[in-house]
């Protein structure tokens, strides 16, 4: 098979759609006004921001005045969690509930709050990467101010029972925030039906540019200001709006939430073929629940192989993939997500995430299935770790055949 480029890392970021780009371009050189300006050029930009705000609201089933534009998912997470902590502290509520496998934007914020005297419960996610509403309910205390649980995990793609968790939170009068960065555009979301009080989303995961995102905040929750300064975002997040990116986000999210079930059916078929093919590799396993899982997510561990070597070899073949989250690739620690599933260090180290979407093709799947097994075989043939595994566990070393 001829070498080709296969982008299989859509959980890291996505290509900006042509439609979103076309919508954004005029706001660089023609409609370049400041939305706060009094004249028509400014007003046109203010209108464009409003339109995008409405588009984001519609995509989530929210009201337009519940949407705040931010610079992305991490900012939205920080704002929601630190904001709620501040509001909670005023009422003497200094307990937060989250899970062990949140994105670092959530985990590190919680750890920071622990230093400030907050108490944080990190719910275990079991071997399948799922939490239950019952776990949340059991953890809620009188002084709990916030529950923050991601909608879909960024590494293993498992989808949490958000509506049920939200219901439990509301029953106990606790605010519920969800990091839906991986979920928006991949599963249907309606913040009202799903009892969500706050939701973070990021543009570049759904074919909008990097550097733009949004936070949904339900009417009635008065989050403290994130950035002091001008009156943008209802005075809460000052700074001249990133008009082109906001416009692109509005267009991209509108497309992203359209016909999700149909899109997913096609993606899931490709994904399942990938999983089936990859699990033929001896001593490999799929991480995370198979059923409650994003349609495009594959996460496998291949014993006896370093994740990093796998990625570099795949790149030489033109395949862009990742081990765990791109945000942690700078660190040497194995994925905290995989460790939270109870995987041993050594297994967690040899993990591979492939995240495909509807831009991928059956040919991409064929190509990955063709190039990956020989790469694994080659790496294992040189791996002392693999040799030891074979020896101690009495496994037939197929790389020697």
């Amino acid at each position, binding site marked *: 098979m001829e070498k080709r480029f296969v982008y299989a890392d859509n959980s890291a970021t996505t290509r900006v759609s042509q439609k979103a780009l076309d919508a954004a371009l005029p706001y660089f050189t023609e409609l370049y006004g400041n939305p706060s300006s*009094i004249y028509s050029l400014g*007003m046109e930009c203010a209108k464009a921001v*409003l*339109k995008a705000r*409405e588009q984001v609201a519609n995509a989530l089933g929210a*009201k*337009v*005045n519940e949407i705040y534009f931010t610079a992305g998912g991490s900012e939205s997470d920080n704002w929601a969690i630190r904001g709620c902590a501040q509001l909670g502290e005023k009422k003497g509520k200094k307990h937060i509930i989250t899970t062990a496998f949140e994105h670092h934007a959530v985990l590190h914020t919680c750890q920071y709050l622990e230093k400030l005297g907050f108490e944080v419960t990190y719910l275990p996610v079991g071997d399948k990467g799922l939490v239950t509403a019952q776990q949340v309910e059991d953890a809620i205390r009188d002084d709990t101010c916030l529950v923050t649980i991601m909608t879909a995990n960024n590494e293993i793609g498992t989808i949490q029972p958000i509506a049920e968790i939200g219901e439990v939170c509301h029953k106990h009068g606790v605010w519920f925030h969800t990091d839906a960065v991986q979920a928006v555009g991949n599963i249907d979301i309606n913040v009202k039906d799903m009892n969500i009080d706050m939701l973070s989303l990021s543009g570049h995961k759904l074919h909008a540019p990097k550097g733009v995102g949004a936070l949904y905040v339900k009417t009635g929750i008065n989050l403290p200001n994130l950035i002091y300064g001008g009156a943008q975002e*209802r005075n809460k997040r000052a700074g001249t709006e990133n008009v082109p990116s906001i416009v692109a986000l509005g267009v991209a999210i509108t497309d992203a939430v359209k016909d999700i079930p149909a899109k997913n059916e096609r993606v899931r078929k490709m994904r399942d073929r990938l999983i089936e093919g990859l699990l033929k590799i001896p001593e490999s396993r799929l991480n995370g629940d198979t059923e409650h899982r994003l349609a495009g997510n594959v996460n496998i561990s291949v014993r006896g192989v370093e994740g990093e070597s796998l990625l570099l070899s795949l790149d030489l073949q033109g395949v862009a993939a990742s081990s765990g989250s791109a945000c942690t690739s700078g660190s040497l620690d194995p994925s905290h997500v995989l460790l939270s599933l109870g995987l041993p260090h050594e297994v967690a180290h040899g993990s591979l995430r492939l995240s495909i979407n509807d831009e991928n093709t059956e040919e991409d799947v064929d190509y990955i299935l063709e190039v990956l097994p020989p790469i694994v075989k080659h790496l294992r043939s040189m791996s002392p770790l693999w040799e030891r595994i074979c020896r101690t566990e009495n496994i037939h070393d197929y790389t020697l055949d």
Partner: protein
Amino acid sequence: MADKVLVAMSGGVDSSVSVKLLLDEGYDVAGATMRLYSNEDIGLDKTRTCCSLNDVEDARFVAFKLGIDFHVFNFSDDFKHYVIDNFVDTYLAGGTPNPCIECNKHLKFAKFYERAKLLGFDHIATGHYAAREFDEKSGRWLLKRSPDRSKDQSYVLYSMTQEQLAHTLFPVGEMHKDKIRDIAEENKLINANKPDSQDICFIPDGDYAGFITKRCGEQQSGDIVLSDGTKLGKHKGLIHYTIGQRKGVGISYSEPLFVITKDMEHNRLIMGKADEVYSDSLVAGDVNFIPFDTLTEPITCTAQTRYHQKDAECTVSPMNDGKVLVTFKEPHKAISKGQAVVFYDGEYVIGGGTIL
């Protein structure tokens, strides 16, 4: 070419629907919101007040939905001077101010109207519940109550001049609130379910005394006395009480007592029996008449001395120096200095003034 109308948009349902109705009638419509104060200015960080930043954003969205141009006018200095300061001063002088009337007089139908004129608009429009009518015979514009008496806002519009009336449209003025909400919902205007604004937009929690205390410090305590001078107890600062108030004064007596006067000079709160809350007459200044320019001889009509009150029969007589004397047929309850007295002839507003 269609007449150009600038709608004063508060972000609320009434002015939003006004825009829609004017567009349907074929006017060339734009919208503007007056930025009257920031929440910080009034010592708040909560929303749900009238012309705060959130309401500006809501109004902007409605304008966007309906496809009209939208402007924001910053009139916060004027608002502070004409409305907030006046409110505080009147209260401290023992009166009961009506800031909505001051705002209409000095902001909506003055600053806003002037600005609209400057920008080439033929008319302004507001979401008030009131109607106007041109009287061919006299060649004057008349002001009428809304048919929905529970929503009628003609009381706060008595000070409108002929020029203002000639150039102000009240698109929802003769409609019922339910119908207006339906239109808002049909058109997905953001605020279809937004609650009606309170009486005083810049004191959303209704704690007038707290607002004044925050600005001017705690008020001195003083004596509560009967009208004959008998001491009954101590009050906690006169701003905490209103004329006609019975409950919450903190005294006990053999029969119900009402606040009848706030004696600012001696810092005394004067209580009286039920009959002492009533008076036969009042004097009003700063008067305005709508079907004619000046009152030359006494007229009989009805009057209201509060926003929502039954019509009271009375005679209005001119005094020298432009003031008027209002004599009630039946003794009238709890007349408060600073409030407006507004005169009606059936459904028509004859005029009004400030109670002195």
